[in-house]
Structures are given as structure tokens and as C-alpha cells.
């Protein structure tokens, strides 16, 4: 499979002297869905900022769709890689919600009728259409987050990178974002999500990249990564309740763990034992 992003032995040192990445190598295939997980400060945000050239590696290289990020400006790389930053307040520039979504499309010279059609479509998907004439700065945190996602999806980049998209969203809004993830998958997009949301990961991603202290410590499908207590401990992640329950039950021989547990399956197996 063709690679969307290749990260090759990247080190990154912030100007203050913090070495945030210590030799990260990673390959993301076209059309793949991956999650980057790890404790706070492990370097997730630093890594994804390399994907559209906001940060350039101190050593090593990052190649996006065949282009070395050191050789192209951020605005050009961003046409391929849409990056939704962690903090929405840093990425809102326009006077109205409508204009905010139109902003990148205008920068990339989309024809006006396309802009109109897409702004409306994505505002509706994100349930923000009713706010179209409001100032984006007056939205709630969750709404601002969805607005910045809409602004990136609307200009249709091939690779979409989201930094903690579900933070600050309630259950229903998370479901909406989940719906959008499914949409992106049917569109064949490459998606990279930084998140702590285990449920979200189990639902959507093909592969988890676990980071700790500026390094990738493991890459595995969710069924494996999230049921491996020692690996999770190293990444300082808490396994999801269901996985913890399944691990405990399987240690007691009441349940046989294979892949990520399904709640119905766990109940069935336990009941079966009980009946005996």
C-alpha cells in the first residue's frame, strides 16, 4: 500500500531545549485510520504538528504523500493534510461561523458556489448551521471544536489529523463526531486521531500508536493494545472498564479473551459458566 505519511527517525527539540521527540518512526498507509495515544506530555501534539510542516524535524525526516515537509511551506502541505489543533481558540479567525468554514476554501481558491454548498453542508453535519451568522468566539468549547473540524473537512484534504476531537463534547456530540469518522472512512480518507477516548478508538481505528516520553513504544490493533495491561501501564493508560473486567474474568478462567471483548459476549460466557 502507498504511504500517506512516513516519519523517519525524527527527533524534535523545542527552542527552549525540551527534547519532545526522541527518534520516532512511523508509517501511515493511505486510507488508514490510526489513533495516537499516550500520557500528557508524551509528544503526541508535537508529532502531529510535523505532519503539515508546522514543526520541522530537528533531525530525521517526514514525508507526506512523497513530499519532504522541509521542502514545502505549511500552506501547501496543509492542502493535503488538514490539521485540527487541540485548542479551538487558537484557530478561529473570522467574524461569523459561516466565514470561518469558508476561510480555508477561500485561501485555496475554491469557486464561490462550491464554497457556499460545502459551508452549508458541513455546518449542518456539525449542527452549527443555526449559528451561521454568530461570532464564532461566542460559541461554547464543544461547538468551537466542531466548528474547527468543519472548517478543515470542508476544504476536503486527503489526510485529516485531529488533536483530541472528543474533548469537551457530551455523549450525543461524541456520537456525531463518530458519525463523521464513519463518513470519512467511506470517503477513503486517511485519518489520524490523537485521543484519550478509549471507546472512540475501539469503535473506529485500525491501529493504535502508543507513545511515551517522546518515543513510540508500541503499535497494535485496539483489540491487542487495549487488552495488554503491561503495555497500557507503560503508556500510563487505564484500560477501559470492559477490558479490565474481561482481563480479570479470563484470569479466573471464567472468560476466554480473544481480541477486544464485546459486552454481550462477556455476559453470555459468564452466564454459561454459571448455568453449569
Amino acid at each position, binding site marked *: 500500500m502507498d504511504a500517506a505519511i512516513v516519519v523517519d527517525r525524527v527527533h524534535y527539540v523545542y527552542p527552549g531545549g525540551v527534547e519532545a521527540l526522541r527518534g520516532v518512526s512511523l508509517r501511515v498507509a493511505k486510507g488508514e485510520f490510526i489513533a495516537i495515544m499516550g500520557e500528557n506530555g508524551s509528544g503526541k501534539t508535537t508529532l502531529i504538528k510535523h505532519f503539515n510542516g508546522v514543526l520541522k524535524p530537528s533531525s530525521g525526516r517526514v514525508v507526506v504523500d512523497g513530499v519532504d515537509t522541509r521542502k514545502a511551506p505549511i500552506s501547501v502541505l496543509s492542502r493535503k493534510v488538514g490539521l485540527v489543533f487541540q485548542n479551538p481558540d487558537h484557530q478561529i479567525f473570522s467574524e461569523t461561523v459561516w466565514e470561518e468554514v469558508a476561510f480555508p476554501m477561500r*485561501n*485555496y481558491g475554491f469557486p464561490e458556489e462550491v464554497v457556499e454548498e460545502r459551508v452549508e453542508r458541513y455546518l449542518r453535519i456539525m449542527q452549527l448551521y443555526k449559528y451561521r451568522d454568530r461570532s464564532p468566539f461566542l460559541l461554547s468549547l464543544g461547538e468551537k471544536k466542531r466548528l474547527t473540524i468543519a472548517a478543515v473537512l470542508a476544504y476536503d484534504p486527503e489526510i485529516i489529523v485531529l488533536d483530541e476531537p472528543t474533548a469537551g463534547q457530551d455523549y450525543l456530540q461524541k456520537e456525531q463526531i463518530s458519525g463523521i469518522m464513519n463518513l470519512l472512512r467511506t470517503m477513503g480518507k486517511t485519518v489520524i486521531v490523537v485521543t484519550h477516548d478509549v471507546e472512540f478508538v475501539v469503535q473506529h481505528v485500525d491501529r493504535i500508536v502508543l507513545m511515551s516520553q517522546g518515543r513510540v513504544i508500541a503499535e497494535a490493533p485496539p483489540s491487542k493494545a487495549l487488552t495488554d495491561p503491561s503495555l497500557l501501564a507503560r503508556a500510563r493508560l487505564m484500560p477501559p472498564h470492559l477490558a479490565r473486567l474481561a482481563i480479570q474474568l479470563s484470569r479466573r478462567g471464567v472468560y476466554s479473551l480473544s481480541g477486544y471483548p464485546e459486552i454481550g459476549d462477556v455476559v453470555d460466557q459468564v452466564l454459561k459458566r454459571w448455568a453449569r
Partner: protein
Amino acid sequence: MTSPLQAFKYTRKDTFLDSLDPRSKFFLSISLLLISLFTQSITVQLAVIGSTFLLVAAAKRLRQWVPTLQAITPLVLLIFAVNLLFSTPPSLAYAALMSLRFLAVTAAFSMFFLTTTPDDLALALEQSGVPREYSLMFTMSLRFIPTLAEDVETVGAALMSRGFKLDEGNIIKRAKNYVYLLVPLIVYEVRRSLMIAEALEARAFGASEKPTRVKELKMRARDYIVLAASLLASFSPQIIMWLGLNPP
């Protein structure tokens, strides 16, 4: 963090300069400023920079201080060029004097901020009769310079990530581009300051006119020595002239 702003960031160390009362240190920087402002001599400017260098070296802060001076070099060159172009008649010596003066003053005040904790600064202001609101305002603005610099970078990166060509076009175009940066920045900083104000009030800021302090500043013998030395240094060019020795 952007390096010019590193200039005003305190790092804790245990040296002679750190042990001084902020007031006497401030006086020391002021006297360096006065010497620099009142002399027309390039040699004296160099002497001011040289002595600041020695003081900073003694305070083990060269690693922060030197990058600051490097960072302001473009500004120094600009001052040089402007003075060379607009002085009548054009005078190399005058342009050199003005740019060195700028360098000397920055060097001296950078030394002060590098060796004084914001807390000591606040104490010094309060004990000099500045109301608490103002001293806090001053130290908080210092505290937020690096944060602000980070925000500028983050917002700029976000703009470019939306396909905006921030650093392209002629100077006027670029200046206009930066207006886009200002909108989110102002909103963000205003919001942040309101949050800080609320947090301060939640911690009973302003409940008493003059809050008690754990630490009181006290001038010691070494402070008086520095004061006297600074005073003497301020007048040194005049003294030298007085003695009939022309300063070079």
C-alpha cells in the same frame, strides 16, 4: 519560546547579583543607563557593555544574555542604518554611537531582569509605595510575555494550516496579514485576563488594603556598597573630565 523574550525571564541561581536587593540592582542598571545616555563617546558605550558583560558573567547568566543580544542585532543594525541615512552630515561615528547605546541599555536591563525574581520585583515596588494592584499588574505582564509569544506562534501556525500565506507578499501585504493574527490573539488574551481576574478574586485578592508578606526586603551592607559604586560610576565620565583627563 522566541529568544528575544528569553531576555526577561528569571532563572533561579545563587550568585552575588541574585543576593542583592532588587532596589540596589535596579539602581545599578539605571546608572548604566545614565552613563550610556549622557556620553557621546563610543569607548564609554563599549565600556558599559563590557562591564555589563563582566557582571552577567559573574552572575552565570551569559547563556541567556548573549542570545538576547544576538536577537536584537537586526534592530541594532536598523538603528545604525537609519542614523547613518538621516544624520546630516552622514556620520559613521554618530550611527555607531546610537546603535551601541541601544545595545548597552538593553544589555543593562536584561541583566536586571535575568537576576531578579518577579516576586522580589513586586516586593520592591510595594515597599517603594506602589499600590499592590499596580505592582501585581507589572509582574503579571512580565510573567505573560513568554506565554503571549507562544500564543503568537500557535495562532500563526493555525492560520497557515488553513492555507493562509502569512509570510508572503510585499511588506504592506504582510503587515495586513498580521491583522488576521490579532483577532484571535486579542480575544484569547482578553478572555485569559478575565479568567485570571476571577481567579484572583476567588483567592480574596483585594480583601485587605495591604496584605501581609512572608518576606520583607532589607538593604544590607553589600547593597549600600553597590549603590555607592553605581552612583560613583554614573558620574565617572564627569569625574574623569574634572580631573582634566579627557575621556577618549
